């Protein structure tokens, strides 16, 4: 017996890969969110506890992880708007592939200035 789940139809191309990307980024963002609420909750413990944990985020390695997080959020946001258009706009399903390239284009337009600003701040030390 094959262990492959029955009924999994992989159609490939823009539709499937954007769906995969939406799931992967969604799960990653959700796990980050759990940690992010917990670290922010440290403000309720003491200023020192909060500042100590936040200080561990302020280095170039974490800046790269933050860049990855923001990249995931921006893709999930724009692709989510694409999903809404597919569901509610009459011509949405017909234009879903074109809209994915719109998502990718907008993602580049947002990420380039974000990366320049964020990585400049992170790698030049700030204070």
């Amino acid at each position, binding site marked *: 017996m*094959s262990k*492959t*789940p*029955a*009924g999994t*139809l992989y159609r490939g191309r823009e539709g499937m890969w954007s769906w995969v990307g939406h*799931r992967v980024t*969604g*799960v990653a*963002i*959700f796990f980050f*969110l*759990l940690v992010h*609420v*917990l670290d*922010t*909750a440290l*403000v*309720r413990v*003491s*200023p*020192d506890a*909060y*500042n100590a944990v*936040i200080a561990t*985020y*302020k280095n170039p390695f974490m*800046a790269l992880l*933050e860049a990855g997080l*923001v990249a995931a*959020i921006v893709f999930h*946001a724009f692709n*989510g*708007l694409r*999903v*809404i258009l597919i*569901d*509610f706009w009459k011509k949405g399903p017909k234009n879903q592939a074109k809209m994915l390239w719109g998502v990718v284009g907008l993602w580049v337009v947002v990420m380039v200035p*974000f990366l320049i*600003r*964020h990585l400049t*701040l*992170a790698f030049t*030390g*700030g*204070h």
Partner: protein
Amino acid sequence: MAVSTEIQAPRSGRIAPEYKRHGRSKGNFEMFAWLFMRLSGVVLVVLIFGHLFVNLMVGEGVHAIDFGFVGGKWADPFWQVWDLAMLWLAMLHGTNGVRTIINDYAEKDGTRMTLKTVLYLASAVVIVLGTLVIFTFDPCPAGAAADLLPSFCRA
């Protein structure tokens, strides 16, 4: 071996009566969950883009974030409401997304129930904790070093 293309019935929620194989209707929960994902999604784009812009792009960016920064923001009801809305919408949106994924990939009833129980417990704890922190937060705790606190604490 021939590849089976039999499509299994969705494991979650409402199915149109003509497609139902067994069991009773669970009402419109899945339709509301679907609608909630779209409505909360649009609002979250605004809330989270605003959050990222104010915290990472303005001024010194990430370097400015410390206890005093958070205290200064939450002294303003505007940011309390902003962050509260973001917390609830993002947690419910994320929890429903992960619920969908568990329903898709966990085939055994026991595994699915266990994973969803853990998910709902973790979400409830995070939502309650986050809400309490936003509303019971003291920006000027007694005994803390003055240079760690927002500037208005010295007044």
